[in-house]
């Protein structure tokens, strides 16, 4: 009986796995190279806030990230492949985070762990917290949660390994080839009178909305998205603005309608014009 091999037309990677299961070992440079990288991701020992506690649990015996080949936390960015941004990135720390990222050897990956690193989290409306590390460096995997459980971080690592498996050697940005060559360092913000600056321009004012767009995920090109965070909305916060009526700490008029509509606690809030 002839052996019938069905080639699923999904992609090269699936095809290879399928062949392997049937005893045919085929490889490509891509596959071999990706296998090497995905099997020994060395994270940088770098924690910023409470999320770092969960990251330690993820590295230690109970959750044991060694099962996935990423147990070697390195204390130097020069020896690390993966930066787990574990915690609140304050504006004061942001330049150091970018500097460390720039110092990591390529290929390098970023996991944004927790609500804080992803968006500013509970401190988003504060004056001192960067609203998402993706404003400054591209992020491969985002982990939601405050803090995410170690399992969630393991899942993020597995997701990252999956993404590495799909990378094409000739198209990753760090070899200066393809659609998104990256030949220079990511700009490191500097401290200015009103907030973080890049090349002398204010990019993230203290107490204000960021004036730069975030980097998109690798699936979407890892480029600046060009979309500012709600440039058109002027938000009112009752404590700052005497013109806003304050009926109740959670019930102020003049909240941006999008925020009001999204927020279960502020169901009955009207908008500024109303």
């Amino acid at each position: 009986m002839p052996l019938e091999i069905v080639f699923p037309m999904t992609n090269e990677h699936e095809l290879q796995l399928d062949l392997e299961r049937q005893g045919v070992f085929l490889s490509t440079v891509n596959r071999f190279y990706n296998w090497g990288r995905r099997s020994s991701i060395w994270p940088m020992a770098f924690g910023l806030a409470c999320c770092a506690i969960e990251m330690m649990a993820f590295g230690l015996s109970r959750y044991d990230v060694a099962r996935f080949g990423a147990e070697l936390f390195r204390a130097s960015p020069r020896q690390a492949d993966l930066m787990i941004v574990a915690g609140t990135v304050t504006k004061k720390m942001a330049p150091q985070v970018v500097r460390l990222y720039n110092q990591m050897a390529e290929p390098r990956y970023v996991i944004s762990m927790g609500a804080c690193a992803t968006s500013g989290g509970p401190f988003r409306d504060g004056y001192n917290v960067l609203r998402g590390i993706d404003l400054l460096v591209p992020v491969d995997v985002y982990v939601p949660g405050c803090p995410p459980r170690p399992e969630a971080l393991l899942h993020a690592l597995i997701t990252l390994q999956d993404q590495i498996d799909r990378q094409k050697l000739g198209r990753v940005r760090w070899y200066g080839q393809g659609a998104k060559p990256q030949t220079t360092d990511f700009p490191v913000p500097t401290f200015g009178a009103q907030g973080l600056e890049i090349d002398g321009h204010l990019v993230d004012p203290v107490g204000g909305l960021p004036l730069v767009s975030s980097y998109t995920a690798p699936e979407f090109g890892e480029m600046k998205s060009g979309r500012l965070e709600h440039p058109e909305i002027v938000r009112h916060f009752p404590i700052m603005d005497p013109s806003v009526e304050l009926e109740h700490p959670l019930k102020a008029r003049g909240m941006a309608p999008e925020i009001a509509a999204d927020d279960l606690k502020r169901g009955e809030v009207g908008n500024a014009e109303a």
Partner: protein
Amino acid sequence: MPRLDAAELRERMARDLPGAVLEVVPLQVAAAPPHGPQPGAFMTSDTLVAPSRLVEAACYLRDLLGYAYLSDIAVVDYLADDLFELVYRFYHVEGGEGLTLKVRIPRDHPEVPSLTPAWPGANFHEREAFDLYGIVFVGHPFLRRIYMWDEFEGFPMRKDFPKQGDKYIGADE
């Protein structure tokens, strides 16, 4: 364990440091809403001292009463009353409840004598209050920012500090 409550401290200080203790004027902060946590005027029995007598009062607490640990200096911005209230909390190292000294200073001229020369542990607390609220501690040996970067202008914990971009984005509004 020392047992001295706020009212007692007030009495003793009024007796031992004549002129230092001020009468507490109720603040005009907006009345709490009926369903809020604390209806009625907000007043505590803590000792309000004259800013010029602060160092003396603190040393009295430390040297005579033994409250040697200055736990923190909090600043409250009473925007409606146009004043800052500095809250110094002291603890006795043997335990027991803490005691509080309060100082009120005008918002437009926020100056208060520094405790640091007499009490080195106040150093970082005072720098923090300077950094975030712009309180000037006269006589502090090294009054510069501690959390924010040196280049920064403004005092972000003040209630009139703009937030959510209303200073830099949509300034016309």
